């Protein structure tokens, strides 16, 4: 059985279920208790779990992540809210030099079951300091897991898995996804395994490998191509960007021989590079065409709506890339 609920509600269900299940789970963040989170993503939780377990905090991102790590070392399962993903910059030492490395440096004496919720992405003219997608920094940081839901179902299954994971896990949630509705299974033990991709759509002419909000844009592109041009495109939703499901990527290349990699993060230096490079190295013989990589332009995110909307890839750009690939080879 499944219900149609919003992405926000899916994350609320995930938190509620995990907090009921495990008394060690608790939440900290700015404006999460009295306001219920700036996107409503913590609404009602203090009523059920109290303000000791759903803690409003000062504006002290370094301390929140640092204390999250400390609490995790001492056996808790903290979930820290980052307000906006851009403020991760204020707690990078705590994430990169502490959370990610302690288990390894200390010879596996400890685990760091910390979850970081970080609302990210471009929307509504939030401007350069409130719009970034920074996942590749953390893919590049051994010791961290990084998951990125594309819809309500992912949101619930990945957030629950992140909270249960014994590794520090970053959960990036695109701000524009919060109000979107989708089907979510009823099962309280519905989990999406970290490190497994999902093929959202079959198709043999090309594959779009993507994640997060760009999955919806890719599906839109694929539908248009199917309808208008009879081009059949496979869409792979990675769900986790670390660990990456390299096998699913290789399968998509083997099945389609033409690949577009797309994300909203800046193209240069992004996760798309990891994916395309993996393909160029390990799936070279399966390739019939160049691997096209799409991502935001190499500029900060501008404020003006007309500028903002011009600098990251949406369905038309993704469709055009697929069309180019298919035309090139047919």
């Amino acid at each position, binding site marked *: 059985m499944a219900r149609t609920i919003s992405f926000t509600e899916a994350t609320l269900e995930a938190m509620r279920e995990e907090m009921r299940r495990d008394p060690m789970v608790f939440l900290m963040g*700015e*404006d999460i208790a*009295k*306001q219920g989170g*700036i*996107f*409503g993503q913590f609404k009602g939780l203090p009523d059920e779990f109290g303000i000791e377990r759903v803690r*409003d*905090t*000062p*504006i*002290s*991102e*370094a301390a929140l992540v640092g204390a999250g790590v400390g609490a995790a070392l001492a056996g808790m399962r903290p979930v820290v809210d980052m307000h906006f993903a*851009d*403020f991760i910059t*204020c707690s990078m030492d705590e994430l990169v030099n502490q959370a990610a490395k302690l288990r390894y440096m200390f010879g596996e004496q400890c685990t760091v079951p910390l979850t970081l919720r970080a609302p990210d992405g471009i*929307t*509504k*003219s*939030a*401007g*350069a*300091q*409130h719009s970034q997608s920074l996942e590749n920094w953390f893919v590049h940081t051994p010791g961290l897991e990084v998951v990125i839901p594309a819809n309500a179902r992912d949101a619930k299954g990945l957030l629950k898995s992140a909270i249960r994971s014994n590794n520090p896990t970053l959960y990036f949630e695109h*701000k524009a996804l919060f109000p979107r509705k989708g089907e979510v299974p009823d099962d309280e033990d519905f989990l999406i395994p970290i490190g497994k991709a999902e093929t959202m759509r079959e198709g043999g002419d090309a594959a779009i490998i993507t994640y997060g909000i760009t999955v919806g844009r890719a599906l839109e592109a694929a539908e248009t191509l199917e309808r208008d041009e009879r081009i059949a495109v496979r869409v792979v939703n990675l769900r986790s960007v670390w660990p990456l499901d390299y096998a699913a990527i290789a399968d998509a290349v083997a099945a389609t021989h033409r690949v577009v990699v797309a994300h909203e993060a800046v*193209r*240069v230096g992004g996760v798309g590079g990891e994916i395309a490079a993996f393909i160029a190295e390990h799936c070279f013989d399966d390739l019939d065409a160049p691997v096209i990589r*799409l991502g935001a*332009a*190499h*500029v*900060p995110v*501008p*404020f*003006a*709506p*007309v*500028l*903002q*909307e*011009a*600098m*990251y*890839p*949406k369905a*038309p*750009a993704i469709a*055009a890339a697929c069309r180019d690939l298919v035309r090139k080879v047919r």
Partner: protein
Amino acid sequence: MTHTLTPDAPLADSEISLARALLQMMIRVRVLEEGIERHFLAGEIPGFAHLSIGQEAVAAGVCAALRRDDYIASTHRGHGHTLAKGTAMRAMVAELFARADGMCRGKGGSMHIADFSIGMLGANGVVAGGFGLVAGAALAARLRKTDQVAVCFFGDGATNRGPFHENLNLAAIWNLPALFVLENNHYASTTETSETMKIEDVAIRADGYGIPSQIVDGFDALAVYYAAGEAVERARRGEGPTFIECKTYRVRGHYIGDPERYRTKGEVEAHKSDDPIVRLQARLGPTLSQQEFEELWGTAKSEFADALAFARASAQPETGEAFRGAYEGDRDPETPHGAFAVREEAAFAPFFTEVPSAGTGSAH
């Protein structure tokens, strides 16, 4: 730490023209922000906007003590600071409207207004983002042996972040010509200061750096002006930084659209009498006639109407503007980065179709 929370004293004759200037500035800020509020709610201003209504005495008082070539760094709540430092309303309103003639070409918006021609180093979307900028600008003034001063405006919430600590210490040990002006409005978005710090006066933190501090009535523009003026003179004389805590109150929501579930209407009402404009008008008493007072409002309203018309008449930025300006020199397509940017513009431009609506801004 010096407390100067005195009741409003009668004005000396010599203070009258200063008080009028402060009143005029506060009215300009108020009119500007009430206009921003209206046009934001009408959907004409995209993004986020945070109003300083009720806090105008701080911006007006401090900036009146500054020269054009002094520096200020502001916060997410920066319209007042910027106007008081001397910017043109037109360029600011056009920026908020995301237009090509905006002070930042439409690329910054309310959280990133800036005017380098008057030493205004920018609003900041990162809480506590201004401390480093001010420490650095003050260091520059010192190294260049100018007598410029750099002023950091910040909220009570910002004082819980690490950069507050590190930069105040830096300013102290290097004796930098800096002013740290805290607008303690008792809230950081939904949290009251009593929840986020265990101290009554934030100014006590300045003791931990060896920085002298003063606590002033932040609704009293003259008191703020005097405190700032003294601190500015100290700084110009090479005697180092000062910390000024202005006790004030945020009358509007944290951002435009804030449901304000964290406080009662009654609490806000109780602060109505603290309005710095009302307070200063009262103090000017018969030296400012009702007609003169209304003229101040009238002038400010005309100024805003003009700015609004200017903003509305200004064009949307061209799409190409998105791909320019991250680097100096990148508009030259011969540079590797330039060539690259041009390629990206080409990649997306054809797919750019609809201009999205401004949106009413999500919670922030």
